[in-house]
């Protein structure tokens, strides 16, 4: 098949920025199709970490010495980079976390302690959610007595109507993925958040699978919380960010206690720092924040439009190649797709498919993708997921299709 139009030469050349992708796998070129699990890292991110540790590292918000002041500046500049990336109105609305999982736990824990939720109140999720956007709410449910509802239409898609069918007068919060990590479905985040706001319902958007592929504007979305993980955005692991509307962050109680998050501590009583410090107890992942900022600068250098065009073209090519294999059945039929394609091969378990593909140098994720309710919804125990990044070329999907040919041969389909 011919390479599709829409591939921007500048984006095509991005592959050379990622040293790991040059590593042969089982004697073949690596076709890395697991960026939705974690993306590879470009030189500029790796260099930023080394440079920071070699010449500017010290703890932040502590010392009066120059190094500490410089490290603090770099850390706070990284916060401003995230602020601009999400178009938040002020940098105090950005809290650094370990990743999206920690951010959702933070929100669930703080909301749970805030007294805003009463027994019988409802939290609406969708069937497509990652476990990280399910289990924290179950922990909160156990503490507050709220009920959890899950939205989807019969086909497993989540549109505005499907979400609001689950909404009642008792709904206090809607928490959903901007893009599904399993099916690549893009959810209508703006419509959901705006309708929720009209009804006084809080929204949390898990943007892990969205920010690597498209520009996000939290003011335009009108969400109350938005989160993403750095490692899926070509940044280091162990760093992520939470956007929270300032009046909410300023009024909610902290979720972890320790250094940095206080104003004054006595044995009788402690007063808390304003956000974002209130939610950043202990020494943060300082270099991680610096590396994340480098990753954001890297992505912004291409522009989200160019990235989207390139990835859409590669993704469409991938869907077409997979569709052409007789035994392949795509899971999920999103009207709009970003990042991921899930499929099964009839007659062969995904785990066996994954092993065969691995020996062909093709790295895909097989399993339930931390979304067991979604698997149950689609009636499959597991799927094979091919997901892409800025460095993915159509050749990676050629390798996948060839690998599936090997699967058919070995299993005599």
């Amino acid at each position, binding site marked *: 098949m011919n390479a599709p139009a829409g591939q921007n030469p500048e984006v095509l050349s991005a592959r050379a920025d990622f040293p790991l992708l040059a590593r042969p796998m089982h004697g073949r070129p690596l076709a890395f199709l697991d960026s939705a699990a974690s993306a590879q890292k470009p030189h500029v991110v790796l260099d930023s970490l080394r440079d920071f540790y070699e010449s500017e590292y010290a703890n932040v918000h502590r010392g009066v010495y120059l190094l500490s002041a410089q490290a603090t500046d770099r850390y706070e500049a990284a916060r401003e980079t995230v602020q601009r990336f999400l178009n938040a109105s002020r940098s105090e609305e950005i809290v650094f976390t370990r990743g999206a999982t920690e951010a959702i736990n933070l929100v669930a824990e703080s909301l749970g302690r805030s007294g805003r939720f009463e027994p019988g109140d409802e939290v609406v999720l969708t069937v497509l959610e990652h476990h990280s956007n399910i289990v924290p709410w179950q922990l909160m449910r156990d503490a507050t007595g709220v009920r959890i509802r899950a939205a989807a239409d019969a086909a497993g898609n989540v549109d505005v109507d499907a979400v609001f069918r689950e909404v009642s007068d008792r709904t206090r919060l809607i928490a959903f993925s901007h893009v599904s990590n399993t099916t690549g479905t893009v959810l209508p985040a703006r419509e959901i958040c705006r309708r929720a706001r009209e009804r006084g319902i809080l929204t949390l958007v898990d943007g892990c699978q969205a920010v690597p592929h498209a520009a996000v504007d939290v003011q335009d979305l009108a969400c109350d919380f938005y989160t993403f993980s750095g490692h899926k955005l070509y940044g280091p692991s162990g760093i992520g960010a939470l956007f929270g509307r300032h009046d909410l962050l300023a009024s909610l109680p902290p979720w972890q206690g320790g250094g940095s998050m206080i104003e004054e501590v006595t044995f009788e009583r402690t007063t808390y720092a304003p956000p974002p410090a209130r939610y950043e107890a202990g020494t943060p992942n300082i270099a991680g924040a610096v590396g994340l900022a480098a990753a954001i600068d890297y992505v912004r250098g291409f522009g989200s439009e160019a990235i989207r065009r390139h990835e859409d073209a590669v993704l469409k090519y991938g869907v077409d190649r997979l569709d052409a294999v007789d035994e392949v059945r795509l899971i999920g039929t999103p009207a709009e797709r970003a990042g991921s394609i899930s499929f099964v091969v009839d007659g*062969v378990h995904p*785990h*066996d498919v994954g092993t065969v593909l691995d020996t062909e140098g093709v790295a895909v994720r097989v*399993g339930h993708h931390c979304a067991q309710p979604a698997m149950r919804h689609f009636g499959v*125990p*597991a799927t094979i997921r091919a997901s892409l990044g800025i460095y993915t070329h159509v050749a990676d999907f050629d390798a996948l299709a060839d690998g599936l040919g090997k699967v058919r041969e070995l*299993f005599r389909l």
Partner: protein
Amino acid sequence: MNDLRDLYQEVILDHSRNPRNAGRLEEPSGTAKGHNPLCGDLITLDVLVEDGTIRDVSFDARGCAISVATASIMSDMLKGRSLAEAHDLFQRFQDMLTGPTAAAEGLDKLEVLAGVREFPMRVKCATLPFHTLRAALDNESGTVQTE
């Protein structure tokens, strides 16, 4: 490709597609569930033990070719064996897959699974039926997990 052909031999494909002893026993003396959370393999295994001898084994499995084929071959081999022999078989099987020498002595038909040794990520698929068997023989409650 050669390693793959060793892994997915005809016998293994056959057992995974037409597992022997599939189903449930009416009155088992022991039952256990096994789960491999990594890939979602799920097996429910029944045993009937009389006077220290395994009279019957049956299982329901939903999983990859390796785990289903292992359960199928294992169940065929266990009938008529003593509990000590069953434990010995598990030990030998584990040694073949992860031990220093890959010796397949006394493993009989299970020897076709020797190729799993070259795929460390898949060893748990092959050992899941045995872990589940051991739990069923002990009639432990709960679910055995490989993780």
